[in-house]
């Protein structure tokens, strides 16, 4: 899908590959079915003196016109399902060991991110807390710990092919591994009220050196949080520490 | 408005089951999924919250047991009413229907006593999700009891005159359903407590 959107996580290529597999299979069936409909519609136009054939489709012989293609469709379905299950297993069912952990708290209508502080642990007082501004290191497995303060949100980074709802009262862990440095969009994908459309954030994927420099800069000028994008109407007071996990 | 006349369609019977009985079964089918949905939700929560067993201790087991008895007895009366209606015995059909309604009334009185006592002890609907389920399920059931009693009241005059006697059977089927729902609610909310 690189033509439409960059893929910058380790599993983006898997998901895109699945996309093309499905496209090829259903594209074939779509064109065949469409072609037959249009061919029949043109070929069997009413002609004076030509009577339609009396075909009821009651015998198995006639029904095989329907069932043979259906069996082929089932085989395609099976192929798609196996491919899906393997990608899904990789993306959502397994959790590779984390190099870094990030706390993500959704609230109306901003994202609060907690980065591991200099001690390399999340949930300690030296955590670096930002609003709508997430920093991660390239080629490291990032665990995101997703929570919500109020309603459902959905933490979506399209370029990473990452998306997961955040649910109040629960803590859900997801993972991704960014592969290309850059600044990308984070969207909220679940309607969360009046400011849903303004719940935008950025993710900055950077090299270890850049990340360390950023961390130092933030720690030094700790008085001010890095600014939220101007569009966000409610730069909520960020909590000093992450809410303890369940 | 011109007087309503029953269309021919109503009295056709391609399945061999009278239309009214067929319809009442479909009503029950759609009711079953309503209560089924509610009870399933409750069960899912109940398995996740063992502490609800302690909450369930505060429902009134004796009152619930009494109500179970009352409701089962009223179901017996509605069967007797049906038998009477089959024999065109309008006097007894009417009598047993009234007894069934009385059964419903006693049930509601006991229920009202339970609610009053529970609410006055602070077990209100907002106390916890257990109590929210308790009030929702029992009130929904109570509304069905009231509905059944109302319909019985409405068909009484006709029954007394010997008209539309098949309706005794239909309301009886419905009343049994109301009874069966209670037989699910009673163990779930009263018996399955920490005390037992």
């Amino acid at each position: 899908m690189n033509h439409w959107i960059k893929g910058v996580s380790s599993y983006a290529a898997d998901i895109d590959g699945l996309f093309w597999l499905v496209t090829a299979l259903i594209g074939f069936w779509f064109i065949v079915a469409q072609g037959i409909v249009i061919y029949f519609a043109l070929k069997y136009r009413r002609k004076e003196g030509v009577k339609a054939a009396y075909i009821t489709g009651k015998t198995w012989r006639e029904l095989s016109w329907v069932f043979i293609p259906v069996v082929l469709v089932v085989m395609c379905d099976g192929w798609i399902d196996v491919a899906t299950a393997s990608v899904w297993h990789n993306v959502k069912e397994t959790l590779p060991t984390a190099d870094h952990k990030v706390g993500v708290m959704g609230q109306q209508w901003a994202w609060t991110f907690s980065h591991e502080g200099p001690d390399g642990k999340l949930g300690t007082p030296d955590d670096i807390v930002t609003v709508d501004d997430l920093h991660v290191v390239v080629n490291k497995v990032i665990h995101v710990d997703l929570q919500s303060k109020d309603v459902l949100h959905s933490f979506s980074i399209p370029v990473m092919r990452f998306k997961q709802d955040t649910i109040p009262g629960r803590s859900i862990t997801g993972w991704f591994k960014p592969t290309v440095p850059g600044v990308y969009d984070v969207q909220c994908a679940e309607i969360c009220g009046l400011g849903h459309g303004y719940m935008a954030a950025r993710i900055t994927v950077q090299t270890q050196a850049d990340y360390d420099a950023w961390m130092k800069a933030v720690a030094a000028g700790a008085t001010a949080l890095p600014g939220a994008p101007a569009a966000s109407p409610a730069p909520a007071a960020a909590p000093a520490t992450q809410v303890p996990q369940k | 408005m011109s007087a309503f006349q029953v269309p021919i369609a109503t009295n056709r019977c391609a399945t061999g089951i009278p239309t009214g009985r067929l319809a009442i079964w479909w009503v029950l089918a759609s009711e079953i999924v309503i209560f089924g949905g509610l009870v399933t939700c409750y069960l899912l929560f109940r398995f996740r919250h063992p502490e609800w067993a302690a909450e369930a201790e505060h429902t009134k087991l004796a009152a619930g047991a009494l109500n179970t008895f009352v409701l089962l007895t009223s179901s017996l009366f509605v069967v007797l009413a049906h038998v009477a209606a089959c024999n065109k015995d309008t006097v007894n059909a009417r009598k047993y229907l009234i007894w069934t309604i009385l059964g419903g009334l006693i049930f509601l009185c006991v229920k009202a006593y339970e609610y009053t006592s529970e609410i006055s002890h602070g077990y209100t609907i907002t106390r916890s999700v257990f109590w929210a389920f308790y009030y929702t399920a029992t009130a929904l059931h109570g509304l069905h009891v009231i509905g059944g009693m109302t319909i019985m009241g409405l068909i009484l005059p006709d029954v007394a005159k010997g008209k539309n006697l098949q309706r005794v059977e239909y309301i009886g089927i419905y009343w049994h359903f109301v009874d069966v729902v209670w037989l699910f609610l009673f163990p779930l909310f009263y018996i399955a407590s920490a005390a037992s």
Partner: protein
Amino acid sequence: MTSSSVHADAAPEADSHAHHAPQSFWSKYIFSVDHKIIGLQYTLTGIFMAVVGVYMSYVFRMHLANPAAHIPFYGVLSPAAYNSLVTNHGTIMIFWVAMPILLAGLGNYCIPLMIGCDDMVFPRVNRLSFQVFFLSTVLLLVGFMAPGGAFGGAWTSYPPLSAKVEYNLTPHGNVIWLLAVALEIVAFLLGGINFVTTAMNSRAKGMKMFDMPVLVWMIVIATIIFMMSVGPLVAGAVMLLLDQTLGTHFFAAQGGDPVLWQHLFWFFGHPEVYVLLLPELGVVCEIICVFSRKPLFGYKTIVYTTFMVGILSMIVWAHHQFIAGIDPRMASIFSLTTIIISIPVAVIMFAMIATLFKGSIEFKVPMLWAIGLIVEFLLGGVTGIYLGSSALDVYFHDTYFVVAHFHYTLIPLVAFGGFAIFTYYFPKVTGKMLDERLGRIHFWGSAIAFNFIFIPLFFSGLAGEHRRIYDYSGFAELTTPHMQSLRTMATHALLVMIAFQIPFVINVIKSLLKGAPAGANPWKANTLEWTADSPPPHGNWAELPEVYRGPYEYSVPGREQDYWPQNAAN
């Protein structure tokens, strides 16, 4: 419901039709118990609500094309109004357009006529059903006048957003919305019991189960799916209402579970798609047979596979929740069931296509809409495979790809199917023929414009654009000129599609005033409704028909005529 009309002693059918005396305007058109009038009441209410729903889509599409600009016939759209328009557009199009037109309107009008009886089995329950539905319609629209505005938490109404005023900021709108939906469901339950009982019990003399037109089967199966899936949502609606009004915590984080609502909603919400799909497929079967003069290919196979669709539709719901925090292992199961359900649907589609084979196809306007439905629905159907695949859904969930996908299923069903029904039955309902030329202009204009609305949206979804976003300016990847051009193209195509409804309106008015008389059977169809007068009188037939054969005996070898009405003795 139990108190409804059941006569103890069956009146013999012969001395029947004396009772259809002249009636006043009110009892004839407003408080009628006649299934045809009730069907038309449902349909007209549905058409009115369709205009409302299209107006809403016009407003928010205009806003998306020109953010914050003044919109003609509306003004400037605020974020709150945007949310409530998006929410109510969805709600209205599903519950107040698709359901009343495709299920209630069509079912009420056609079932008694197609199975050869004089009315529904419980006409007064039927009337009550429409009255409850009408009340729900008024209630939903009243929501827009409530202080704080109409509900804006999406048609799925996920709590906690929908449960608490401090989150959704619509203190009355959310309760009104929920009550309106609940009432609407009650209306359809009342109607549904009528549909199923009528089809089971009141068939014409000689009509066996498999002599019923497929349309009746499909409506009945759709109704049963509805009745069997909506119950948990009713229970859920009661729970949500208590959360909203009394402050219980069924769906709150404090002791409750927000995801539970999603299960209850989608346990109904997905079968609902098939509730809308099946009547439409039924109509297409009827129309294809009539206009290609061929028997339906594999009648019984279609009916059986439809039952399979119904059963499978009950076990696919969680594919709406792949990323909603359910157990990932569960997702694999639902992904499998979702992809399996494409099998029976494929059987039905292939059988419909096979029906065209060696036919004598005449492209009258209803046939154009029916073939258009198949062609467009195929795209909606196959794009569903992407979303049923859990791993791909991670990316596509809640993007415009989903929007484009379900509009490609629902617009063919509701708009194409709706117009197919309208143009097919217009001669029966009014006794007048529609103009073919205006009908063709309407079809081609609408069908082409429709593709230009939603194909761009597939691509904006592929590029990662999410739904229900008021303002894209916060997202660098989505503010490019290319992305904006996709939005603008969709909006312009929508305007074109709306403009192409003008020929339709002219056509209807013109035909009502001076259309050619239709006669009883303008399409030379077999099914029983075409043996009644156009329009059929109260009671439908002077003498109820008797049936001798199945509904699809077209082009039977050895017969001079290429059709053979079900009630013709020979």
